[in-house]
């Protein structure tokens, strides 16, 4: 029973990590209506920046973490400047498709800049887990979970309660209308990418702390997708709930069902849950409902 509870807790925490990565998607979507297919690549880039500042440049964690976040923000900004600015005014669809190109490009770029080797990732959170009686909880996930919740609360306050948040929402709603109201679409999208890149980097730190880094890490982007859709693409707060549910379901499947079937149902369970939810609520739990009017 203790183990069962432990599995639930660990699952929920892993789910929160998915939520954090998914938050990268959602923030970009919420502020620009662009669905970023290259989110997983942002995670690796963030990871490599952290690796570079710590393992290569040899900075202490206190220095390298803030520096990495700044650098990641710059990368996000650069991506926006190079790839998306020119497309403002074009259909959102073209922007989304550019992110598909970005995915292919960034994969190559990571390989070119950082090389293909498997790198050790710095130990950012203590390796020693937290012991609660018989239960043990990985420190990186625990602290990551807290960070995720704080970030979610903060960002959802920002988007729902502040005027800047409302401005970005307006951009996501309709680029042309927003700019005709004097809202800088460019600024909003740039902000979104900066934030998205920073969130991805934090995600990378939690995900990879004490582990290894290769471009395989981008798979987390696709693991986080179901969480974003489950919550609904506009909902930041909803990510927490969605992440926890999906994380727990996945953990219980891998630990109790997979041994029985001798396969890896755990890795597809998030997608199955997502499909089921979307069939009931086509825009996720808290996503904006499609408005159809004639």
């Amino acid at each position, binding site marked *: 029973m203790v183990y069962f509870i432990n599995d639930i807790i660990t699952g929920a925490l892993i789910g929160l990590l998915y939520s954090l990565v998914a938050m990268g998607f959602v923030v970009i979507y919420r502020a620009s209506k662009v669905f970023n297919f290259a989110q997983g690549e942002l995670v690796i880039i963030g990871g490599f920046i952290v690796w570079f500042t710590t393992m290569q440049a040899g900075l202490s964690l206190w220095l390298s973490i803030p520096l990495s976040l700044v650098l990641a923000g710059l990368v996000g900004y650069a991506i926006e400047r190079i790839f998306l600015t020119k497309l403002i005014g074009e259909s959102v669809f073209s922007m989304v498709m550019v992110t*598909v190109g970005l995915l*292919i*490009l960034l994969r190559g770029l990571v390989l*070119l800049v950082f090389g293909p080797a498997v790198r050790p990732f710095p130990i950012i959170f203590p390796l020693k887990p937290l012991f609660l009686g018989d239960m043990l909880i990985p420190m990186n996930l625990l602290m990551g979970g807290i960070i995720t919740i704080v970030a979610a609360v903060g960002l959802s306050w920002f988007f729902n309660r502040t005027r800047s948040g409302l401005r970005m929402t307006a951009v996501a709603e309709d680029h042309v209308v927003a700019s005709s109201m004097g809202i800088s679409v460019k600024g909003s999208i740039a902000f979104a990418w900066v934030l998205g890149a920073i969130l991805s980097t934090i995600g990378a730190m939690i995900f990879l702390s004490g582990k290894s880094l290769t471009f395989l890490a981008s798979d987390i982007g696709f693991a986080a997708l179901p969480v974003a*859709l489950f919550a609904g693409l506009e909902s930041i707060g909803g990510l927490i709930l969605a992440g926890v549910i999906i994380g727990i379901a996945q953990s219980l499947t891998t630990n109790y069902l997979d041994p029985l079937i001798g396969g890896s*149902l755990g890795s597809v369970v998030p*997608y199955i849950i997502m*499909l089921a939810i*979307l069939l009931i609520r086509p825009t996720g739990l808290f996503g904006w409902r499609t408005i159809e009017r*004639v």
Partner: protein
Amino acid sequence: MDPSGIFPTSYRSDRRIIRTRWQVLALVLFMALLLLAPYLVSGRIIAILNMMMISAVIAVGLQICTGYAGQINLGQAAFMGVGAYTASILASKTGLTFLLTIPLAGLSAALFGFLFGLTAARIKGFYLALTTIAAQFLFHFAVLNLPSTWMGGSNGITVPPAELFGLRFVGETAQFYMNFAVTAIMVAGAFGIVRSRFGRAFVAVRDDDVAAGIMGINVAATKANAFLIGAFYAGVGGALWAYLIRFVGVDQFTLFHSIFFVAMIIVGGMGSIVGALVGVFIIRIIQEIIATVGPNIADSVSFLGGDIVFAGMNVVLGGVIALFMILEPKGLMHRWNIMKSSYRIWPFPY
């Protein structure tokens, strides 16, 4: 816009794709050249053409589903896989002729696609795009976890060569003719579909599904149909793939492959069959150039080191694709059409 001097004289002639005598000539010449290709160019080129034709069938299907009907589909490689597996199983277990296995492969992929298409009745936009990713993962999971006697599990399936009247389709030349025949039929069929009432219904649903419904179009069925047709093409392409490689394994049909199919239709231009073909050509050609030029560069500029050159090549591939999308977000066909109409009214600027 028609070239001046060309006026359609009947509704049928107005429907024609090919409108001038020169175009007829060009098409005939092109087809003849293709047919003679095995006698004109090296095996390597023929092999590239084989790959292109198979990709073309799949990309054209995706174009119908995504470009015409507006249903973003990131599961095309999975649908292709279903077709490839179907053809392989039928060919290896029942010895059925490829004349039957190829259409059956299309049908079974179509069925799988249709199931996902049904969800499109409720799920829209990005939500739908991302549920099609689920198709990808579910396919992968199913192949690996169903009893291995069904779909070969992790072992994959070896495919006997296609045979017709004792003629074995092995080697790139023989396969070229087989692929050519199938591709020609499929592409011609695609033109038929998109210019028929179905094509118009697809476009209607893409542009405004509310209005489409009120026009008497069954929106849910149309979307499901779009998936069905798109997946049918993918299935046929998958079967051709199976006969070409003669071994299918689940890792040949990944999400990354699906993403490349999407890239192909974007580069070529959404909503145009020719665009899909152009996109396939461009992306495949870049890949082949990289595979061909890369080793030579690595050899001649040895101070760079092979790893840098090859990694750089991947960047080039990604970069060129991204660049296409940035500079020509509406695809090459769009640029072509603009060029065409400004050429026709030349020398007047407008």
